[in-house]
């Protein structure tokens, strides 16, 4: 720990010195991104070691390090650098999804399907209804909703409720990797967050269409828009699945026919497909997840071995991915909406717990698992941030403030959720049941 603290200090000092060479407002195109990448990677790994030393998730260390070094606090990593580094997201999401798909064996999960559907369904249903109701009830405290008529308030509350109910497959998988956990809680949690992600994406498309119809006003235009939204969602989901199957086939052919430099090929393809997919309105997570599921469930390729091959790449990718997420946290926004954000986070946690508990009771999950499973729901990360950002971009008026409020709440969940889930994995006894992966070191 002392060595980690020393190295962290050295890295911070070096970068501060380099940044002092040029006037504050000057930015270098190439060197800035390289400097930021190296700094974020080294500093976050040391921060992860420090946090691990005090029994907190490394992931929280990455987030905290990014937040402190980022534009909100020290500004060693500027907005522009954060923008450049967000490109790591493509690789990170691709690898995470491929790993998740490679680990999900339908034959093994068949016994847990009921648990996943009931628990996930209960938690999400309660979360959407509960959070939306809370926002609706607090409408007078949200400046932008104060003057809205009933119908518009309802739609805005529902849209915000859907976004704020999002779970986090990335955090869940990252923590499972970090702790080397294995067992029924891990498998069920992973299934729930992956399926939950799909449900939230679908639900968001629906409420977005509804919001369009409500705020555009003209019925015909709204109906047309709703129709095109529905078509876009279908393309988004089924197109992603179709491309994912093609990717799976490509991986299969490569592994069967070439089988050289597999890691290189997978990382490159994940990146390209994620970047291209995003621009073509396809979901990289869904694409790579489908590819992983295809390999694990429909071919004689063993997904877990494939996952093992790319595991060491996970460490630097996760470190940079979550540090960038930390650097992207907006302290100035959070400061303004801290009260509302805290209320929303508490409401979300409460309704997720209640909904999850009811679902677990219906699914007849053993009490010793019930005690810990719900902790997988509280984290938020990429999906929620992405949807909040979409909200801001799509609804220029109310969407901006609504998005900022939600980002404040997401920030709380992003920091606290992983701590709770790691603790739950440790206490449940599932942590350390398999060899910890690269991300755990």
């Amino acid at each position, binding site marked *: 720990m002392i*060595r980690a603290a020393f*190295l962290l200090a*050295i890295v911070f000092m*070096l*970068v501060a010195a*380099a*940044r*002092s060479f*040029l*006037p504050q407002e000057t930015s*270098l*195109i*190439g*060197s800035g*991104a*390289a*400097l*930021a*990448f*190296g*700094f974020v*990677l*080294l500093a976050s*790994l040391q921060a992860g070691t420090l946090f691990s030393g005090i029994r907190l998730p490394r992931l929280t260390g990455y987030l905290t390090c990014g937040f402190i070094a980022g534009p909100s606090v020290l500004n060693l990593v500027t907005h522009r650098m954060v923008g*450049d580094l967000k*490109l790591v997201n493509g*690789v990170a999401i691709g690898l995470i999804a491929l790993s998740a798909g490679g680990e999900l*064996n339908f*034959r093994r999960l068949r016994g847990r399907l009921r648990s996943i559907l009931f628990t996930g369904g209960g938690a999400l249903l309660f979360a959407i209804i509960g959070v939306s109701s809370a926002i609706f009830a607090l409408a007078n405290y949200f400046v932008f909703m104060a003057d809205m008529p009933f119908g518009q308030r309802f739609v805005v509350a529902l849209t915000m409720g859907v976004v704020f109910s999002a779970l986090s497959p990335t955090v869940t998988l990252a923590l499972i990797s970090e702790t080397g956990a294995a067992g029924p809680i891990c498998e069920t949690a992973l299934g729930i967050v992956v399926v939950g992600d799909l449900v939230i994406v679908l639900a968001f498309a629906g409420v977005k269409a509804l919001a369009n119809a409500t705020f555009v006003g003209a019925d015909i235009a709204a109906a047309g828009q709703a129709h095109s939204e529905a078509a876009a969602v279908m393309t988004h989901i089924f197109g992603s699945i179709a491309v994912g199957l093609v990717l799976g086939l490509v991986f299969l052919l490569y*592994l069967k026919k070439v*089988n*050289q*430099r*597999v*890691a*290189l*090929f*997978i*990382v*490159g393809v994940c990146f*390209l497909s994620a*970047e*291209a997919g995003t*621009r*073509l309105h396809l979901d990289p997570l869904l694409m790579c997840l489908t590819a992983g599921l295809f390999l*694990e469930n*429909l071919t*004689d*390729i*063993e997904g877990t*071995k494939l996952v093992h*091959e*790319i*595991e*060491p*790449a996970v*460490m*630097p990718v996760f*470190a940079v991915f979550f540090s960038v997420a930390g650097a992207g946290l907006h302290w100035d926004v959070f400061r303004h909406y801290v009260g509302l954000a805290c209320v929303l986070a508490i409401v979300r946690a409460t309704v997720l717990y209640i909904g999850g508990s009811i679902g677990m009771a219906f699914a007849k999950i053993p009490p010793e698992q019930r005690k810990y499973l719900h902790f997988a729901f509280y984290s938020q990360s990429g999906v929620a941030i992405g949807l909040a950002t979409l909200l801001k971009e799509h609804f220029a008026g109310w969407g901006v403030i609504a998005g900022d409020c939600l980002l404040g709440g997401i920030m709380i969940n992003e920091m606290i959720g992983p701590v709770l889930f790691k603790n739950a994995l440790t206490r449940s006894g599932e942590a350390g049941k398999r060899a910890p992966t690269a991300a755990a*070191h």
Partner: protein
Amino acid sequence: MPAAENCLRRGRFRLPRALVSGFVFALLTLLSIPAFADEPASAPELQAPSPKTGLLRVVIGLAVALILAIAAAHPLVRRIERRLGLTVIVSSGMPFLLMGLVFRHPSVGILTDDILTDLRPALEFGLGWLGFYVGMQFDVRELDTLPEKTSNVVFAESAIPFLATAVLCALLLIGIEPSFMSDIGSDSRWIAIRDALALGACAAPAAPVAAVAIARSAGSVAASIVARVTALNDIAGVVVLGLICAFFRPTDAYAAWKLPHIAWLFVMSGLGGVLGILSYVLVRSSSSAAEEIAYLLGAIAISAGMSGYLGISPLVCCAIAGALLTNLPHKRLKDLKEMIAQVERPLYLIFLLIAGASWDPTAWQGWVLAPIFVFARVGGKIVGAHVAKFTGPPHLPDAGTLGLALSPQSPIAIATIVSYITLYKPASGSHLPWFMTACIVGGLLTEITVQAIVRLRGGLRLDTSRSSRPPPPGGFGTGVTIPAMPSPPNFEKDSGGPS
């Protein structure tokens, strides 16, 4: 299935190297992507392709480059290269340079101006990696094992080509562009001197292609000496580039630090030293191969970024850091070196793709400079070989063989000129692309010339397929030792059919 298990085990053993290759590739591609992310089809000359078409074109282009880089780094390609006695510049480098040129063409529109601007981080990182690679060849423990007076060979084979090229190119530059001399007292003269020094820096490095042939004809000690000389010639080129960076500051106009030129030498060596120690502490503290990869990537990226920020070539600072890292005690140093070397080839090919895209071969001045560059360089190497034979250790092959063996141009020469142009292009002049032409065409011409002379002489056949003597212990240096490829890992399920 024991055989399958064995394959898998071996596959796992090779994991870090395969993975670091993959990760660096992804990083390079990743750092280069914002342009097409932001502006999918912005090439002005194109007849407004749809954003999706433009995007797909870029994606397909980069995917093709990725696949070709994987293919070109295959051991088979290396074997063919060695059999034909070719350097990487000619065998797989030229196709990548040409591919860069094609991708750059407006009608293709894959590597547009915007994309090239956004490729800068990838370039910096690539230069940093190559710098580490060069620096890690400077292992004092290995140098101590060389015969006495080997330093004379290194000096002669670095200094004479450097001086010959710098002087001849300076004269030619003045002839081509009289303004270099007409504005007495202005900066132009210094710019001409700086440019000539940079070309001289590109003349010193030599490619280690002939070591095996020398082992056959003159013995393994001679081959070992030649291999080490080529490695040290690379370092000489980087040292000259460092001096240029210190005495011709590219960032003085806008930098917050105002230091005398000599102080920049201290800053440069101090920065390289600190980064080297940091890399060492990080790598030593790693508890797994994955962590080592992560730390290495981080150390190289931060070194390259800091150098670029301070207006120093990443090649120079990272070479200092690499040299320090390699000379400090470390149990897994050999693995570390292998890891760096393993990625060097694919990284260099991607680097050449970018260089090709940045290359403007239309200026005639570059084509005029190229033969002079070759003449000065090869002439310098041959004269240097005679001097070395006279002053160096007795184990050396004859001067003609030595001169020809050290003539093929090292890949580091192109990295050096790209680094130079990247640093100085914003501050001074549009004439810098001439040097890229001189260096690239010069490399090709050198290869043709050397191959022709070698075949005419029949004395030094760069054919490695029938080597009768084993290579010297420890291989022939980093450029020559080709690590054996692993058996591919087995991903198939152990039992049963499709699940």
